[in-house]
């Protein structure tokens, strides 16, 4: 039997890892931070809501359904917004605002959907928690096992795809130098499009599992994005393995740190939970702005050095990646 807060920390870290891998991966291929990433998670949350409350199905079906829905949303954002803007020579900041606009679009749509569903599901369409819908294995919550298995599987799949397949090599080439990859006949835009599809789908999957342990609202997607930023910054924004470790570091710090502080100082600490990743991000930026992957590069850890994405994209101020 694990204490509830430990289960919570592991579940949260697994989901955060999926989200931050996606955020970093999408950034590396397209060189645009996808601020609509939290929106995809919010869609995932509402897929679970629809299945459980409206259709009264097992919440785990949502995983299968959310992947294509959120993947398509994300791909649509890339195709319809990012590519259109890139063709007109938009810079990094303009592209980022566009993803924020996409996030707002999703946020508004999710809220409209939640309001609409209120007629069917009552008050619970805006705040819900499905811990009681979950199964248990040897006293452990099902979502703990499922999220861990999913996280391990997805990371393995991503690793195999990136190191063993032709598409993976094309992706790595795009990450390293998109122009050069283009001259070798790699359709870098297609690579980015597919990576946005996959990362959007992963965000959706992470979203579907959130309501099984954490209270969810239409706002959850935007709130979890703070942890995703922090995890990606800790990871260095240059390697999906960095993002993996960052997701776990921030996830555990956030949940366990909050329980520890709440034990120590009282439960008034609990609402400030989202400030922990922000503070962690500040510390990392002040101390090691290149993040864990950059640190590993510096001290020359062989394994990570040969990693899929070398942190060569790290450039100082002034050399923005889209320059």
């Amino acid at each position: 039997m694990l204490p509830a807060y430990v289960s919570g920390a592991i579940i949260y870290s697994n989901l955060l890892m999926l989200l931050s891998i996606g955020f970093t991966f999408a950034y590396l291929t397209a060189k645009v931070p996808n601020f609509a990433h939290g929106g995809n998670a919010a869609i995932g949350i509402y897929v679970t809501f629809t299945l459980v409350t409206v259709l009264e199905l097992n919440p785990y079906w949502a995983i299968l359904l959310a992947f294509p829905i959120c993947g398509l949303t994300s791909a649509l954002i890339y195709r319809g917004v990012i590519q259109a803007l890139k063709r007109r020579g938009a810079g990094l900041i303009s592209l980022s605002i566009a993803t924020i606009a996409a996030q707002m679009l999703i946020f508004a749509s999710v809220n409209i959907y939640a309001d609409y569903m209120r007629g069917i599901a009552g008050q619970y369409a805006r705040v819900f928690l499905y811990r009681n819908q979950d199964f248990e294995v040897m006293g452990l919550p099902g979502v703990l096992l499922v999220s861990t298995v999913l996280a391990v599987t997805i990371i393995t799949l991503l690793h195999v795809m990136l190191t063993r397949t032709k598409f993976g090599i094309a992706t790595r080439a795009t990450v390293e130098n998109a122009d050069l990859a283009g001259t070798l006949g790699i359709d870098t835009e297609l690579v980015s499009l597919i990576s946005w599809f996959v990362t959007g789908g992963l965000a959706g999957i992470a979203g579907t599992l959130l309501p099984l342990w954490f209270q969810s609202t239409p706002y959850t997607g935007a709130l979890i994005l703070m942890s995703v930023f922090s995890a990606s910054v800790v990871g260095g924004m240059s390697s999906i393995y960095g993002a993996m470790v960052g997701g776990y570091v921030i996830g555990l710090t956030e949940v366990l740190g909050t329980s520890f502080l709440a034990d120590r100082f009282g439960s008034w600490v609990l609402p400030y939970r989202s400030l922990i990743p922000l503070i962690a991000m500040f510390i990392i930026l002040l101390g090691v702005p290149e993040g864990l992957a950059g640190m590993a590069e510096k001290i020359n850890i062989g394994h990570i050095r040969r990693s899929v994405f070398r942190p060569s994209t790290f450039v100082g101020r002034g050399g923005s990646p889209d320059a």
Partner: protein
Amino acid sequence: MLNQELFITIITDISIWFVLYLIVTVALNLQYGYTGIPNFGMVLSVAGGAYVTGALAGRIARLYYSVGTDLDFVADSAKIASMINDRLATDPLAGIALFLLIIVIAMLVNAFLGFIVAYPSIKVREVYLMMVLIAAGEAIRIVGENYYPLVGGTTWVQVPNVFIWLGDSQRIAVSVLFVGIAFLVFLLVQRIVGSPFGRLIRAVRENETVVESLGKDTVGIRALVFVLGSAIASLAGVLYAFHSHAVMATAFQRSSWTFLPWLMLMLGGKGNNKGTLAGTFLLIIVRRLIMIFKYEIQQFVPVEAIWLELLLMSGFLILIMIYRPEGLIAEKPIKIRDLDYQDMADTSARSGESNEGGQWVKWQLE
């Protein structure tokens, strides 16, 4: 005269909102339009200004008049505010002094806050700065909604009415005063960007390496502009609080104080204050129209007005950025004295170049 009454209400309402958003958008234009700092956390400064007003205006006035000192500041804030208002009604000087004092404190506090937030990330990659600022904008909301003594958490605190001594003419007088303040801010920023410093920040935006090579401290310049913009934007929060006589933490959402100013800026055209003015004005009118005709709209589209508005605005921003990225009024290049543009145009025409430089010179001659 009911019609006249309604007319005044609509005009003052529009002018107040226009003024608040104009200040924020001008600050954003200084930061992003001229210097290229992507401030995705504008709400931080606006909320900061409002929180300072909510937390301090009542407390300072309470100490000054020593009324209601035994009451709880947040829970009895309405009672305290009405006690203070009774005193302020006959004390115009104290009202004005409180108003100015709060403005100064709020600007200092928010300049400091801006510095703290920007310090770790302004010298690293742009993406980091964006993420830190988005997160900081969320953080201030979390603090405001949960730290009860600040502005009452999810309830609100009453702000003393510092213009109560104006009596019946208060509404119009305050609108005029706020318009005047916004006009001063506009002029100030216009002066800044027209000065040599204005040329410097545009140069920082265009090419930091070149500016650095000329011996300028680009990190310092960016930090300075960020701090200045934060202080200016906090003014909007202060005015908002003094106008509505209350501060409510839930009123400071990212959608209305970060996203909307960005939309106004992109619509009007970044890097030029006239465009900013036009964009702000247009959107305020549209927004007010949506609010006024809310019920009529809801008969056709059964969606809550705030989500419909957000949906329309975000879709609109994407369309503007794709089809008219320079906005309504495009930024004009700086004209430099003693430079012979005609000669440059001839040279570029002779060499048969149709490059950007030639285009730029042609533009100057128009």
